[in-house]
């Protein structure tokens, strides 16, 4: 009887380890990568080229975002897919260019975009684009949407910024179909 018990125990130990490990890894990855991304962004601003933060990265920084009220300073990566979002908020490739067109930025609710929980309508936010120019934005609306039946509609040429993250912030399930959309207008 000892053996099955041992097996199950071992299994549980492994799961516990993996679970905590993953959670820790995700948080550490999200934080650590910032250092490398910051370096890449500095180089991008100097040279104007796409600089990959590390050699095998499939994304690169395309902007920087500062929300003074919550002391948030984030580098925006190209692409709003999993590989990019793990390291930082990502610009949706299907939407417009940052700064000049309407763009959509996605971010994880539990790492980089956790600050969106506390932003208010009217808050200022600065966005730096590849050319080094800072664009001032102001939060014009916060919306909570159900994504099951709809997409986000953007007018490419309106120079809006949409920050998208999962909602509500403190839940367990991952395949959530509710999103918080923070809409910003140039100010």
């Amino acid at each position: 009887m000892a053996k099955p018990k041992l097996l199950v125990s071992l299994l549980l130990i492994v799961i516990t380890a993996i679970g905590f490990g993953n959670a820790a890894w995700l948080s550490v990855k999200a934080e650590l990568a910032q250092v490398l991304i910051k370096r890449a962004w500095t180089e991008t601003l100097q040279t104007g080229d796409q600089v990959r933060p590390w050699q095998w990265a499939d994304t690169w920084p395309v902007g920087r975002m500062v929300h003074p009220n919550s002391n948030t300073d984030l580098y925006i990566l190209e692409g709003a897919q999993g590989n990019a979002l793990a390291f930082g908020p990502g610009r949706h490739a299907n939407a417009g260019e940052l700064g000049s067109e309407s763009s959509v930025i996605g971010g994880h609710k539990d790492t980089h975009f956790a600050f969106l929980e506390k932003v208010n309508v009217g808050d200022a936010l600065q966005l730096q684009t590849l050319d080094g120019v800072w664009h001032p934005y102001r939060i014009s609306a916060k919306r909570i949407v159900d994504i099951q039946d709809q997409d986000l509609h953007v007018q490419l040429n309106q120079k809006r910024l949409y920050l998208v993250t999962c909602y509500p912030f403190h839940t367990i399930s991952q395949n959530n179909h509710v999103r918080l959309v923070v809409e910003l207008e140039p100010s």
Partner: protein
Amino acid sequence: MLFSKTPKRDYFNPPSTYKPWFRDRQRAAQPRKHRLLILVSFLCFLLGLMISPLSRAESGELILKSEDGEPSPALLHSTDVDLKVNGMIAHVTYSQKFTNNSNKWTHAVYTFPLNENAAINSMEMLIGKRIIRGKIKQKEEAKKAFETAKKAGKKASLTEQQRPNLFTQHVANIAPGEDITVTLQYIQQVAYQNGEFSFHLPTTLTPRYIPGIPTKDLSDTVLVEHAYAGGSETNNANEEHRHSENKSERGSHSRRHITTDNTFISGWALPTNEVSDADKITPFMIDTLPQNNLTNQLSLTATINAGMAINSICSKGHQVQWHSIDDTKYQYRVLLDDTQITMDRDLWLHWRPLNTATPQAAYFAENIDNNHYALVMLTPPQVNPKDLQDFPRDVTFIIDTSGSMGGRPIEDAKAALKLAIERLDTKDRFNIVAFSSNYTKLFSQPTNTQPHNINTALSFISGLRANGGTEMAGALHEALKAEPQENFIKQVVFITDGAVGNEAALFSLIKQELGSARLFTVGIGSAPNSYFMTRAAQFGRGSYVFIHDTNNIQKEMQRLFTKLESPVLSNLSLILPKNMRLNKSVEVFPKRLPDLYAGEPLLINIKVPDFDSIKHIDNVKGSGNNLDNNVVLAGTLTDTNGNILKWQRSVQVQYLTAPSPNNAIDNAVNSPPAHSTQTTGIATAWARKKVAALMDEKALGRNEEDVEKDILKVALPHKLITAYTSFVAIEETKSRPESTNASPQHVKNLMPQGMQMRAISYPQTSAGINQHLVISALSLFLLMLLNMGEARRYLFAQYRIFKEDKGITHNG
């Protein structure tokens, strides 16, 4: 024998009540472990189930809907249009088929466009082979009946008007896998200009800009599905509440009304203080993607009986074939090359009679219940603009550079504007106002057309980018307020897609500030708001053209130039026959004759009640008196020498006393009477014109309650859908079992072709850290549970060590 052996342990009555905490465990050890092991294995299994989705969607993966083979939409929609044109009246049978493609009961909501003159007078719901006829009711009453039926699980449908060119179709309780077809019948007056007839069928809409401050603030709202849904009743309350609130207080929402009833909500915009029904006129949109060809498809069959030989039939955005129908005179069938077309742009059919048959005047009539209805068309004389006196013009061009113009529309608008600038005469003066959220003027004052000014204007136009909102009021006000110099004719040319939600307010502004100016609209895009275009031109006493395609900019602008450059046919007067003049209750629309521009006919809708009494008078006076049996349009023209020339056109009234099948349209001016047959739809067309006239009065400030009363008086007998009346059809029997629920599904409209708007799928934005944490915590708990004995012993040992340590420290 069964119980020869006593059970090893009596679970309910343990033999010993004394249980030492950490010793004596051998007795109960074995069976307990069994149970625990089973329990833990089961929980592990559950844990495994929980983890499994994680392995599928690796943390933070974005699932792009379009890439991952998006399952087809839960609700499919297709439209079938059967068009029958008879003279100037188009009878349209418009069938919308809703297919529930899911395995759940569904309510469909579809906000769809029609031409602004469409007069819907019948609605039927087709469920399998059962037909349920719709009844016309007051809007609120219809809504209530529909809601009750929907809750009760009965199939029902409701058609409502949101704008004269925007309607909402609701269908309740569509069973899984079922089709329900809603068939609308409507009458639409065919347009006639420059010797060409045209029929317009919008299939989608340009998303409208909603000006104003939202009267509902939803930030930080805990989500109920489509939380921004709200009944119109709460809007007003909210508005007041909002007004009293400071802007800085927007974060606090102690008294927010959010209705849980999300049935009548179909839009992406929130009601604002300027557009209180914003959510109803902003249906969800999707891009035209290849996988969307299952839904939003339209098929069309058309029969045109123009009453004369036709030279050509064409459509600008679509490929059509046409041929005359055998064994008939002047009847033609039109077919689209594709059996199904994608509903992403307006459909236009144009037909042109043979040159010899170009109609000059026509009288169509219908007698219903002792009332005589007529539609009269009179064409003013064709004149060569060069023979007439012309005045220098002062033209202000307004160009819409809002976000909705992005993409091809803004390029078309710029091309059209450049054409117009280059075309200006040396005597003329001009200015340009470009607007989006704000407006900019090119020159502070209208300027002459020196080459350097023209060049400045052309480079200004080249630099225009579509971006921002559609705040029309400021730009219109700016353009209209500038006083023209003496002897200059002031004209305003407004180039826009008309995608705004506050039409009525703008009409009122145009009417108030117009003065001596004339407003012309140029509609841009695949699906412009034609209601705004035509009505703004009507209030602005000007005219309109539509540019729906890059290829016809030249042609359509040419048409506009002709109108701008030829003098207006003003001082028009309409003389009705004596017996109509005497009858005080004859109603004629439009009440005030509009100015006529080159190539435009005058169309008048007349109702003569108590028609029998008129006939009586007619008979007494003698039937030979033909001279006073004509509708006469008279006016004046000024030639280059300043001489005033009088002209007139007339058509004989036909009371349909002796119907004889004949040509409906007279070919020659003042020709002998041609007996027209009864033309169905003339009465409906008249009623629609009356409703439009009443709505115009409302836009200009007449009390809404009075307008509503007057509209109900016309709409209910004529069975017309209006802003205050809706069609509702309800099945008698209940079909949805009470145990099941139905969810609302929106039919999305396609983004108009050429528009620069994108539908972005939402990214997956959770790293799943919480999930990992929960899983590990859970498995840790299970581990502890499984190894309870060991854990206890271990903990106890630790505790003892700790205690001893404590004792030592105390002692020491």
